[in-house]
């Protein structure tokens, strides 16, 4: 089927002017083709004999389809081979997007997609992927987020981008700021007014703030940066102590099986994958939080809101002072190896000042580990609006009674500071017991 116009994709054979056996010459009109616009004579570009008419009168076929077979005379003419029939440039388009073969298991969810889903508070279970092979794409997650009301805080308050950025920097929760802009929108001045000198700023907004607050931190001089960080910590801690009725529980946990299991595994692992005790403690703390959800979530609008997943905040002390608590997302689900590399990555980036705003503001429970600094135990201050903080002291050799006999065993003192508005000592105790049980069966931490 010849291309008979710039905008022609298919054509209909209106009439054959030849029949099999006819002799034809180059340039002879052999058929009449109906394009969308008009009936047009189609000519032959070779001299020869009509062998067979393949496409019949009235049939519509795309450009390039072979209409008839013409045999060329045997004489060795230097005629070139006829152009490859039926393969016009246009059809060599890239293969269409291949849908997943039915029945094949959907590909695993990439960490990036999980992180994005978490940022938007989207539950990935049962979400159909539009990517190659049914994989979930960022767009799928974002569409899912747009379709329903974000979990956590109420409707997103109307604030200018500048106001959001300053609020993130100063640790001000927009929910607590009254806007004086058009339509009651919050503007920079409103945010700054909401932070009177000395009085602690209300806690960060639980819904993850979008603005890259740390870049604002990084943009200024180091001295300025530590001063404003100190101010932010001061405000947060003062508010925590003022508003949260802390209760504390502690427990000494035998680390023998955990450490020997770890050393055994480390023998087979390359240096870069080798585990440290902190990774085990972190994983256990996360799994325990999943088992005892009462400690994992936020205190907002005078009620406890349990979080869907466990995002474990990690208290990281910076060289030369200062503290950041970035979160490891889905710490309960992440395999131990990924948790280890995630922890190393967070520490390096925290100390280099290259954390993203979203990482800093969405922990559902925080862990602090001062064992390296040699203290036996730590009773921490909860990060509002979270409702619990788990603490670990130094792993030390201590005389312990086991089965009636005295033995020397590596042990660690684990503590929990919890918000008595959200839970009672009973829940705190159940959490530490769960933590201890998990550390006795390290295989489950994988």
């Amino acid at each position, binding site marked *: 089927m010849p291309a008979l116009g710039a905008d022609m994709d298919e054509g209909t054979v209106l009439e054959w002017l030849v029949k099999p056996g006819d002799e034809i010459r180059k340039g002879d009109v052999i058929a009449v083709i109906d394009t969308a616009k008009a009936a047009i004579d189609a000519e032959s570009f070779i001299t020869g004999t009509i062998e067979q008419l393949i496409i019949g009168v009235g049939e519509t076929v795309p450009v390039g389809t072979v209409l008839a077979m013409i045999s060329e005379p045997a004489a060795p003419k230097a005629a070139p081979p006829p152009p490859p029939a039926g393969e016009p440039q246009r059809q060599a388009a890239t293969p269409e997007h291949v849908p997943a073969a039915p029945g094949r298991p959907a590909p695993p969810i990439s960490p990036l997609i999980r992180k994005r889903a978490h940022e938007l508070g989207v539950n990935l279970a049962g979400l159909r992927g539009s990517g190659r092979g049914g994989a979930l794409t960022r767009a799928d997650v974002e569409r899912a987020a747009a379709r329903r009301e974000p979990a956590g805080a109420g409707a997103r308050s109307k604030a200018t981008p500048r106001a959001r950025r300053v609020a993130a920097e100063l640790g001000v929760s927009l929910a607590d700021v009254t806007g004086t802009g058009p339509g009651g929108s919050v503007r920079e001045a409103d945010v700054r007014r909401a932070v009177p000198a000395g009085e602690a700023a209300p806690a960060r907004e639980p819904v993850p703030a979008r603005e890259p607050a740390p870049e604002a931190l990084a943009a200024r001089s180091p001295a300025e940066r530590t001063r404003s960080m100190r101010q932010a910590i001061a405000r947060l801690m003062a508010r925590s102590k003022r508003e949260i009725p802390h209760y504390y529980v502690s427990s000494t946990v035998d680390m023998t099986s955990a450490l020997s299991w770890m*050393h055994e595994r480390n023998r087979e692992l390359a*240096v870069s994958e*080798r585990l*440290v005790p902190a990774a085990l403690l972190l994983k256990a703390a996360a799994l325990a939080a999943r088992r005892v959800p009462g400690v994992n979530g936020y205190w907002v609008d005078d009620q406890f809101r349990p979080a869907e997943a466990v995002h474990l905040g990690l208290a990281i002390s910076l*060289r030369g002072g200062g503290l950041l608590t970035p979160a490891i997302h889905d710490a309960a689900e992440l395999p131990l190896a990924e948790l280890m590399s995630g922890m190393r990555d967070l520490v390096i980036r925290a100390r280099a000042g290259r954390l993203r705003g979203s990482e800093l503001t969405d922990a559902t429970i925080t862990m602090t580990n001062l064992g390296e600094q040699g203290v036996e135990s730590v009773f921490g201050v909860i990060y509002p609006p979270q409702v619990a903080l788990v603490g670990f002291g130094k792993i030390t050799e201590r005389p312990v009674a086991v089965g009636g006999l005295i033995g020397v065993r590596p042990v660690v003192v684990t503590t929990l500071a919890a918000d008595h508005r959200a839970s009672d000592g009973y829940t705190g105790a159940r959490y530490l017991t769960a933590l201890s049980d998990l550390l006795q069966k390290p295989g489950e931490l994988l």
Partner: protein
Amino acid sequence: MTPDQARHAIEEAVARVAPDADLAGLAPDADLRDGLELDSLDFLRFIEILTERTGRQITEDDYPHLATLASAIKFLAGG
């Protein structure tokens, strides 16, 4: 590996893990981890760099040999 090469490798590893740490000011028999405030992650990174630089496999059982500068040099140079 000669003691000098070992010392040089340790100095480079410390520089990369704790850029602001003052190795020179540390007594050869002083504890490296305390003196340089290396936590377990820093120390793991320190071991990782040493393995890359010297090609020596260092298992957890070898950690005690790396407690001080002097012992580390002896361990690496000892072969």
